[in-house]
């Protein structure tokens, strides 16, 4: 895509699988930039925003959500075949999302505990990232995604440069902001050192520990941070920190899996007690 796109607007779509729609809202919330974006991209499919529908083909397709049902598993393959550049947006599409915690659970018993008539529900036993099903060309992390990163991606698509999506730790951004480290100064169980930034290090700026919604950064040394945090608290409590929005991603999957397995054991024990 060249810089002079107005004449040849790329055909773009925004679709969702299993997700809360929050990442799509990030696009709608761009407000000032929204109209210029629609002038430069032809939005042919965006059910969240318009009743106009299309089955493609797409020059660029933003995909939100994880693959959680058999229909979604088929749908994503069909969409891929219609798409030149497939971009996942958000933690669900990238890692399976918070709903991937069911990957360690006894799915039928979960379903039965939530729905009065579980037979109406048809879902897979696992929630998995889009990349486990089809090739992904680019990804925006986060729960939800960062509006600045979304704009940067669209700008990069237009100008032909590689999008500047840093793969460094949240810590770097905290220090640039001048946020005092919540882990060192308060002992908060912050996952920032092993988590990719891009969020702008929002949580520590409000004295909250990072809970890793952007997922692991490259070279994430989960073992070392886990050891350090476990010196002050139960190792199982540290495991649970990783069992969040990006639990199914490597290398969070190992501690998250221990938390998931423990939760499953406890659920089974409760069922037996109830019985």
């Amino acid at each position: 895509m060249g810089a002079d796109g107005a004449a040849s607007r790329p055909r773009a779509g925004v679709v969702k699988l299993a997700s809360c729609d929050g990442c799509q809202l990030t696009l709608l919330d761009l407000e000032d930039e929204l109209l210029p974006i629609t002038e430069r991209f032809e939005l042919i499919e965006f059910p969240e925003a318009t009743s106009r529908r299309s089955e493609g083909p797409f020059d660029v397709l933003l995909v939100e959500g994880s693959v959680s049902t058999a229909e979604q598993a088929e749908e994503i393959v069909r969409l891929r075949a219609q798409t030149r550049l497939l971009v996942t947006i958000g933690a669900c599409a990238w890692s399976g999302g918070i709903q991937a915690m069911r990957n360690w659970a006894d799915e039928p018993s979960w379903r039965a505990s939530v729905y009065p008539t579980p037979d109406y529900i048809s879902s897979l036993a696992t929630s998995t990232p889009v990349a486990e099903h089809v090739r992904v060309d680019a990804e925006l992390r986060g729960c939800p995604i960062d509006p600045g990163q979304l704009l940067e991606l669209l700008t990069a698509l237009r100008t032909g440069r590689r999008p500047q999506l840093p793969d460094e730790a949240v810590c770097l951004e905290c220090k640039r902001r001048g946020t005092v480290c919540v882990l060192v100064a308060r002992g908060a169980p912050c996952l920032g050192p092993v988590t990719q930034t891009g969020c702008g290090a929002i949580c520590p700026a409000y004295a909250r520990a990072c809970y890793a919604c952007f997922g692991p950064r490259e070279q994430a040394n989960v073992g070392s941070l886990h050891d350090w945090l476990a010196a002050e608290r139960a190792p199982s409590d540290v495991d649970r920190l990783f069992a969040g929005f990006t639990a199914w991603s490597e290398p969070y999957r190992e501690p998250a899996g221990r938390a998931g397995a423990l939760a499953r054991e406890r659920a089974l024990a409760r069922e037996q007690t109830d019985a």
Partner: protein
Amino acid sequence: MVSITPTPLQLLRRGDLAILIGLLRDDGYTVIGPTVRESAIVLDEIRSLADLPAGWTDEQAPGTYRLVPNGTDRLFDYTVGPASPKRFTLPPRVPLATARRGADGTASFEPASPQTPRLAFLGLRACEIAAIQVQDRVLEEGPFVDADYRARRDGSLIIAVQCTRAGATCFCGSMGTGPEVTSGHDLVLTEVGDGFLVASGSPEGTRLLDRLPLAAASEAVVADAAQAVVATRRATQGQVAVTGLRDRLLDQLDSTKWAEIADRCLACTNCTMVCPTCFCTSVSLASDLDGRETVMTRQWDSCFSAGFAKVAGGNFRPRRQDRYRQWLTHKFATWHDQFGTSGCVGCGRCITWCPVGIDVRQELAAIAPPYAPEVVPVAPVAASPDAYSVGTIRATNRETADTVTLAIAPGEERFLATEPGQFVMVELPAFPPLPISVSRVADGALHLTIRSAGPATAALTTLQPGSQVGLRGPLGHGWPIERAVGRDLVIVCGGIGLAPLRPVVDAVLRDRARFGEVLVAFGARTPGDRLYSGEAESWRAGSIEVDQIVDRAGPEWTGQVGVVTQLLDRRDWHERSAVAFVCGPERMMQATVSALRTAGITRRHIFVSIERHMECGIGLCGHCQMGSVFICKDGPVFAVADLGDTFGREGI
């Protein structure tokens, strides 16, 4: 002696610090000083005395910082917080330029030239001022200059505070940067009971003093303040062995310890962000949707981040261990080469603010331990060339036709602590003193293996048990066995040269697992001239390879014949990490060094023991000078690299 308290000493009352803050603000300065925010003492704009952290102190340890009340109204009773003045002199984000691209293909660049405030820093510590001076060298002292940094520095004023307490992570005294404030300041304060001792460090400082209400300070107050600063210095000294640190670190590029640290290191960049001297930045771009206008911003970056060493083809430092090594060796070694100073000022921030408490002091000691104790203890007896201690010969053992080992019970215990490769001066009354290497320390006796080569050695080799000799020592620096830990060790010797190396073999056998493969390559004139030939089997039993060669052999010899370098011909240590210890005649050592280098061992890792005429053994008599060293007190063991081109040169 550096004066450790400011002179002349006048007292600024605590409340009158408000006048100083007011004066600075009146003069158009933005006052940057300590204030409490987010559970820490950070640097920020100070508008009044009330902004300062009265009654707060900090407790710091590796990976931990806690703000605690201290029950006083002292204003500067903390050490250093997470933010250094770098945040204001080299801000985390500075607009660089705006680049524009026209529809017709034209390009234009407009520098941002941001307004820089006039900054007055209040409460900077000696380490922080040292860090500013380091960054001045990097960013201002050319040949290229960071204009934004210069603008901020040119307008700035520094009111320093001398530390009267040290935190657990402070080590300014070790790096020679504090706690005394000796340069780079306009005013310096030392907090005392009811105010501050104050002195000027510049004309601007003196002009400020003239505008302040000052009182005379009592001698007792001055003495107490001096005492507190001295105590701080003592508490921060001796934590990093800085002598030779550059060379020691660069010598350890292949250390296995880097990977061990990487097991703990998060590569999270915190150490570099809080470091007051780290200066690395990158440029980030923000474009409009069409890429017509791009705002370029310079922002802090770190050698620990993934993108830092990335090029289109890949990443030069992909692993955490690569990045940690880069940071540590730059900070403590190559910084000296580039900027003529250490990159570390000993503020301890990288220790406190490491989320997993990695302590650079400990890592330096583990990766690049001192080759020898920082202060070489000088035995009193060695201080004088005439002060001999008497030792008694307990046993003698004839090793070869002309060589005898004397087992001597020394008159003083310290001889039994002789390190491998050290020597003693031995004097038989009526004969000149001789330097003799110690060939073993065992069972309370010092073993000296002596070849009869002249009248004095002939007399020594014929002594009987019960005879006495004079001893001075132990003297000199021996074999750096610790540098061979974790590496292959190659011991090459000719003739009597095995004697000073036998204690190395003994040391290796005592702790065999610490070393890689160990080879003893030994050359002698004839089979009968081989020293300690009865011990070779026990060495082999201890997993030491023993390879021997002789110049001339009789019919009973089934081994190799030739020179010792032949034993090295087919060896290859290129892909290994090996250290070599060599002792023998100088020509033999020269040929051996050449063979070892061909086989892949660097000059820095080849050590030789040099023989010279010695009289005093302690660097006073001048006999053994060789180039820039005295063999006796600087050696006799040297890395070949340290001998320069004097080694092997005739007539030196």
